[in-house]
């Protein structure tokens, strides 16, 4: 298990390195068309062949990794910040504010994410730019994912608020801001870190599903979801190299699962 975990961390590090600078690794730009060779099989020039528009599949996979692999943590960070602010506020303030935030969290938790994402993503203008589509998709992911971590943060803050060391700090005249920064935040941080790591594979999978439904990142910008749409025709049985994005996705999400399995995030 230790070896598998080390391998998973190494794999994630390598993929992160590739995702950070795709232009170093890709031989072509993701939108460059080789019109003389559409639907080309794998060769030395195009290791994964070319798509129907003559674009290098490997280069698109590398650029797609940047979109899916780097923006999911950004969305996770956004949802964790929102969860920390709202969950912390609910736990500290209590009363009406607490009830309102909990009710809002319940509302978000009772709706399947994918359903809300479908609704909003489908309402974007038809001529939305690829950069706008990718920003909106991941912003939505970040904004919708705050509810579950916020409930965890709220529970932790409420528990910490009534703990002995906070009581002692108060008794010694510790000011509210100092109490927050020196006592509460360091104790809630590991929980938020856990929520952050757990959210990343969820966001990657959600973006992939949206992309496969045609509601993810707009063309010509590649993402794993968009690349997996090539499987729609069922040609992957005759052309197994079409499964490359699926294999990469399984490896990345599986690696996150392995890494998270042994983490001890308890306070």
């Amino acid at each position, binding site marked *: 298990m230790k070896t598998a975990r080390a391998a998973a961390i190494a794999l994630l590090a390598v993929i992160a390195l590739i995702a950070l600078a795709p232009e170093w690794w890709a031989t072509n730009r993701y939108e460059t068309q080789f019109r003389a060779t559409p639907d080309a099989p794998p060769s030395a020039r195009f290791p994964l062949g070319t798509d129907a528009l003559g674009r290098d599949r490997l280069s698109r996979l590398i650029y797609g990794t940047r979109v899916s692999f780097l923006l999911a943590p950004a969305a996770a960070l956004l949802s964790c910040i929102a969860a920390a602010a709202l969950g912390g506020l609910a736990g500290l303030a209590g009363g009406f504010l607490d009830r309102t935030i909990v009710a809002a969290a319940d509302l978000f938790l009772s709706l399947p994410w994918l359903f809300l994402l479908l609704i909003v993503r489908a309402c974007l203008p038809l001529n939305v730019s690829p950069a706008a589509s990718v920003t909106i998709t991941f912003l939505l992911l970040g904004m919708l994912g705050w509810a579950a971590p916020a409930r965890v943060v709220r529970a932790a803050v409420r528990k910490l608020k009534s703990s002995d060391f906070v009581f002692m700090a108060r008794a010694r005249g510790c000011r509210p801001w100092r109490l927050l920064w020196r006592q509460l935040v360091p104790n809630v941080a590991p929980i938020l870190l856990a929520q952050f790591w757990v959210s990343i594979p969820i966001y990657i999978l959600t973006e992939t599903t949206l992309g496969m439904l045609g509601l993810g990142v707009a063309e010509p910008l590649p993402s794993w979801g968009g690349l997996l749409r090539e499987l729609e025709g069922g040609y992957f049985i005759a052309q197994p190299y079409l499964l490359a994005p699926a294999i990469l996705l399984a490896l990345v999400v599986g690696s996150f*699962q392995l890494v998270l399995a042994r983490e001890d995030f308890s306070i």
Partner: protein
Amino acid sequence: MAGLVLAAGLASAVLVRYSPGALVDQRELNQRLGEDSLAAMRAQKARNSNVGANFLAYLRNLVHGDLGYSESNNAPIASLIADRAPATLRELGVGLSGGWLIGLGLAIPVGRFRRAWMYDAASSATAGLLLSLPAALLAYLCLMEGAASGTVLVIVLAPRIFRFARNLLVQAYGAHHVEMARARGVREWRILSAHILPEAAPQLLALFAASASMAIGAAIPVEAICDAPGLGRLAWQAATARDLPLLVNLTMLVTLATIAAVILSESMTRKDAGSPV
């Protein structure tokens, strides 16, 4: 519960109305439409743009059993939902029952036979692999094998149920009273039915509510890809056609179903906690 459902409906209406491009209508691109038709279409869009007034009107009609009219399907929404709901309910039934049967069925031996590490590793690795793939991709792969959408839901749900149930059962089988019972010669099925399952019941019931919510969420991409005539496909079509009344109704229905599953699970958990084991 009613407040939460209404809030979900209103939230979805607001989300759709204030999304960029909400007032764009693809039908305006049709060059065969005359100026009068375009003006009528824009006037109707303008009338529908007041979310508050429309939502109140919708609630008034809802009291009389009128869910409104779907422009994209050219049919009353109540009849559309009534037509599609049985297919989705059947799928959810197959998915949940199959998922639980396989997930729990695979988890029990992991808890029971602590030395069966190879079986544990193999089943956990398979579950991990399936959990690493999105429901839409599983639907593509299953579709190639001619599998029905209900079967795809089984494959989506079983690894999730297995993973939770495995941890619960390993913990329950490791309890001292279980070891005592085994030492006294109590049979395995008796240990399972009288000690393990009752002890894990509250968490398993909570997992049931979560799995129902997961099934509803997974039904949308699965139905859209498998072309199954259910509510998930209807939701996808409504989203792509920007059919606001249909989307609001489906959001409220999905919220109602999810909350009902949670309340059912909570009430059963309370009942279970109150009854002597």
